[in-house]
């Protein structure tokens, strides 16, 4: 079976800083992968390369067996790129155009992607919004009139309107409070099951990743350190960094001081000489 998304040897450097190095993974149709790591681990850079906002220095990205060109020229290529991978951003307060209502935003996406009939577009806007649990009232509202959870649903609807093969979620629930997080996570598992869209879930939070994904790729200082199915990873983390990430989730008997000590010990390791 052709994998939905195949990434090999992705690498990106900003001057002397190596942001991402040697990231490879593949995603089966309807699969969900968690890209896990702390700030600066290269997970957001990886996500931005997947949607074409950053150009990889080397490595390749293929969607449904077709490699994505590193640079797109022309309308047809842009639209094809957009249909391959879409993205939902961390901050729902900044990722929607404040000037437009949710309905207008979605209408613009549909118009761009070749829905020329106005009433058909309006029907489709309703349909996509219903998919994320928003109604006519939200469609007529500007983003500032909506709550954080509603905005993030709208942002997901905007991505779904393109009908992408893969949806990249960059810390998509981190800015939401816990009960709203759960609603959005449920929505994402529904999207995955019903539409068969592959998810790449970028997060620092293993508890959240566990809820949505089958497997996780742990990134540390731009390099993959562990890539395993989630139950396995959670039961027996092998890499010290993964163990540290797991210990960092607040729980009864949590020891922030101990975590800080372990983090210092880990950062003293020379990057590149990964303990196995």
């Amino acid at each position: 079976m052709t994998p939905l998304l195949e990434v090999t040897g992705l690498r990106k450097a900003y001057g002397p800083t190596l942001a991402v190095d040697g990231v490879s993974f593949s995603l089966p149709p309807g699969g969900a992968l968690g890209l896990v790591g702390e700030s600066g681990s290269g997970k957001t850079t990886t996500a931005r390369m997947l949607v074409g906002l950053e150009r990889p220095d080397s490595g390749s990205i293929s969607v449904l067996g077709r490699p994505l060109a590193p640079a797109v020229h022309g309308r047809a290529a842009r639209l094809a790129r957009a249909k391959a991978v879409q993205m939902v951003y961390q901050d729902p307060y900044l990722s929607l155009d404040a000037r437009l209502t949710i309905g207008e935003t979605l209408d613009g996406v549909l118009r761009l992607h070749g829905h020329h009939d106005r009433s058909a577009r309006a029907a489709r806007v309703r349909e996509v919004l219903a998919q994320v649990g928003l109604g006519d009232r939200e469609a007529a509202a500007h983003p500032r009139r909506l709550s954080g959870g509603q905005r993030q649903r709208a942002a997901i609807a905007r991505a779904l309107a393109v009908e992408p093969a893969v949806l990249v979620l960059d810390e998509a629930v981190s800015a939401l409070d816990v009960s709203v997080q759960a609603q959005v996570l449920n929505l994402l598992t529904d999207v995955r099951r019903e539409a068969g869209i592959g998810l790449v879930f970028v997060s620092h939070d293993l508890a959240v990743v566990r809820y949505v994904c089958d497997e996780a790729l742990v990134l540390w200082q731009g390099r993959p350190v562990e890539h395993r199915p989630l139950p396995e990873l959670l039961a027996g983390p092998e890499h010290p960094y993964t163990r540290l990430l797991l210990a960092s989730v607040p729980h009864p008997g949590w020891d922030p001081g101990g975590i800080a000590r372990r983090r210092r010990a880990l950062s003293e390791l020379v990057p590149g000489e990964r303990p196995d």
Partner: protein
Amino acid sequence: MSTATVRVGVGRMVRRLGGHGWLFRVCLGVLVVFVAVALLAPWLAPQDPTVGDFADTMAGPSAQHWLGTDQGGHDTFSALLEGARTSLLGPLGVVAFSSVGGIAVGLFSGWRGGRVDAVISRVLDVLFAFPSLLLAILAVALFGKGLGAPVLAMAVAYLPYTARLVRGLTAQEKTRPYIAAYLVQGHAPAYVAVRGLLPNIAATVLAQSTVNFGYALLDLAALSFLGLGVQPPTPDWGAMINRAQSAVLAGQPLSAVVPVMAVVVAVLAFNVVGERLGERGTR
């Protein structure tokens, strides 16, 4: 549906404009009156200000001449009303040209970034070094007196102010995720810059243009005062002040004081309105 949206938009705009305190409202009112006077001047002016009555020079206020006459016997009140036309039309030209040019240059520079941006920014720095008045005097020397040459020269001199503002706002706004979202959706970069980004910084740019209008009015009045701008008998506030010099020396300063007041009030009103609009834009 579209008319309803427009109506809602206008209503919101009026409400927003009203919500700035009394000073803003007074200044906005002053500007509306000035524009109305400029538009209706030929019908409002009681006399033809280009025709002087030499039997009645440097007269004080009377029933026939509300604000008196100057040393050429021209009716000051009529000249004030008719002068509003050229005095406001000139700055309008300056602001229109410099805004369109400045937005184009600034948006391009800020959006592209990198080396193109660095080169354009240095060129703007050099343009900043030219005083607008000097540039206008140069243009008059090259193309002759009148309204056209100074307006064109000042448009060039004012362009860097708008361009620098737009460049900075663009560079800042470009990093926002909604811009990334537009690009990821498959929109062309030029479309995203003009239709996605520009409307979101338009309020602040409009404020800068309004402030520029006041300064351009002042500069053009200065040019007219020097005799390099609009030529008599066309009424113009700056030219009125120039002509009134002998009347001031003769102890009848009214024909100079009146246009000076008009310039001061107009510039003040434009500054206040522009500043308040800017505050709204950055909020």
